[in-house]
């Protein structure tokens, strides 16, 4: 049995967290699976928890200074259904778990879980999202890409909570999403690809390609993105195979119960090819 805190406000939540070391608990859809035991037996939670999923003050979507700000405790369903949500994120969430789970799960949880297979994380990283962290000491904003440092590892401080997800609105951006799951619905990713780019006068002016489940963290290859930026589309089309290969060489997938490293490498590179085709109108 552990202590379970049910704060009334974010402020109270931060107090519980900093004074007791309680672990943040949003939808619980990761935590309850990880520490599940058996029917009639309590989950084997190793630490006290502070419940956050009910905090209305962290459930919102609003525009602020050219960015979409999403309250960290907004359920996946509400994020997905909202008109302000970018299509890439909608698509990614739409393929996460199933409705009942999406009614519980949150973006904060998907981020806090720090899985390389986190689908919302993959889309958010392609969208250059950052997150706001709050603690009794104050608030800071960090790039999501830098927040997650390894499988299950983040730079969240002992007294911090994720409170907001900030997604810059890329006017005129084009996006592409593909999840290869273990089946068509209610499945975890074998791999996923999120891409977001912009073209001006046949020149690629902005590009982000994030690959999920092919490395210890959701992967972006900044060097390749930098090289592509400023290139003319026909040039990219010409370098298709080369770019695919560079991605293939950058990823370090593993064999697990869901798929094989060899497959992940091949499929990831093929999907990068599909992104490039979409970008350049090729194939």
């Amino acid at each position, binding site marked *: 049995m*552990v202590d379970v*805190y*049910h704060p009334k406000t974010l402020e109270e939540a931060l107090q519980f967290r900093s004074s007791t070391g309680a672990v943040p608990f949003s939808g619980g859809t990761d935590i*309850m699976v990880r520490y599940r035991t058996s029917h*009639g037996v309590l989950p084997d939670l190793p630490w006290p*928890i502070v419940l956050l999923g009910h905090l209305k003050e962290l459930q919102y979507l609003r525009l602020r200074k050219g960015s979409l700000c999403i309250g960290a405790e907004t359920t996946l369903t509400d994020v997905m259904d909202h008109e302000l949500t970018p299509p890439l994120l909608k698509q990614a969430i739409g393929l996460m778990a199933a*409705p*009942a*789970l999406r009614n519980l799960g949150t973006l904060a949880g998907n981020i806090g879980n720090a899985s390389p297979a986190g689908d919302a994380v993959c889309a958010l990283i392609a969208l250059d999202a950052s997150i706001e962290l709050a603690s009794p000491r104050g608030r800071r904003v960090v790039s999501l890409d830098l927040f997650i440092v390894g499988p299950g590892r983040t730079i969240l401080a002992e007294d911090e909570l994720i409170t907001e997800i900030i997604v810059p609105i890329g006017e005129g951006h084009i996006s592409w999403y593909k999840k290869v799951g273990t089946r068509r619905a*209610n499945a975890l990713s074998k791999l996923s690809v999120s891409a977001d780019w912009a073209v001006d006068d046949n020149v690629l002016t902005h590009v982000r390609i994030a690959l999920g489940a092919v490395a210890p963290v959701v992967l972006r290859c900044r060097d390749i993105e930098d090289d592509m930026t400023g290139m003319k589309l026909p040039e990219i089309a010409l370098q298709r195979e080369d770019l695919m290969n560079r991605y293939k060489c950058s990823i370090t997938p593993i064999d697990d119960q869901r798929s094989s490293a060899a497959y992940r490498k091949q499929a990831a590179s093929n999907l990068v090819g599909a992104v490039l085709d979409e970008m350049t109108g090729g194939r």
Partner: protein
Amino acid sequence: MNEIHCRINGTDYTFSFPGERRLLDVLREDLQLTAAKEGCGEGECGACSVLKDRRVVNSCMIPVAAVEGCEIMTLEGFRQTPEGRCIVEAFSDSGAVQCGFCTPGMVMAAASLLFENPDPSEVQIRTALSGNLCRCTGYDMIVQGVRLAAERGRGLW
């Protein structure tokens, strides 16, 4: 947290269980509300589906403390309502039920869908049921059951 207050099937309850206890266990063991089943205990099968504030959720994933202030509806409560009767009848007529173990969860998932969308398409129905595994029916007749409930229940949702 000392006490948990919530409303289940229209009745107010105050619990003093360990807060991390699963809602599913509380329903099944303390309240003998056994319509919700445990098929996996990890969010995969949907057999434990109940409504939390009119939306379907997996009760095996919810620590009871998290339903503080919420309204929970299980099939025992739902089947007393006109909407509940409509779905139960439509499922029965459509061949949606075989072994029946998945069925209470399916009914709750269907309810959640129809509350949001009284006239769903086939894809919307299939999507709404995609977290509820059924090993017997192959799903087609469940989909038909939901459609029949939508048709018969026009104006109800």
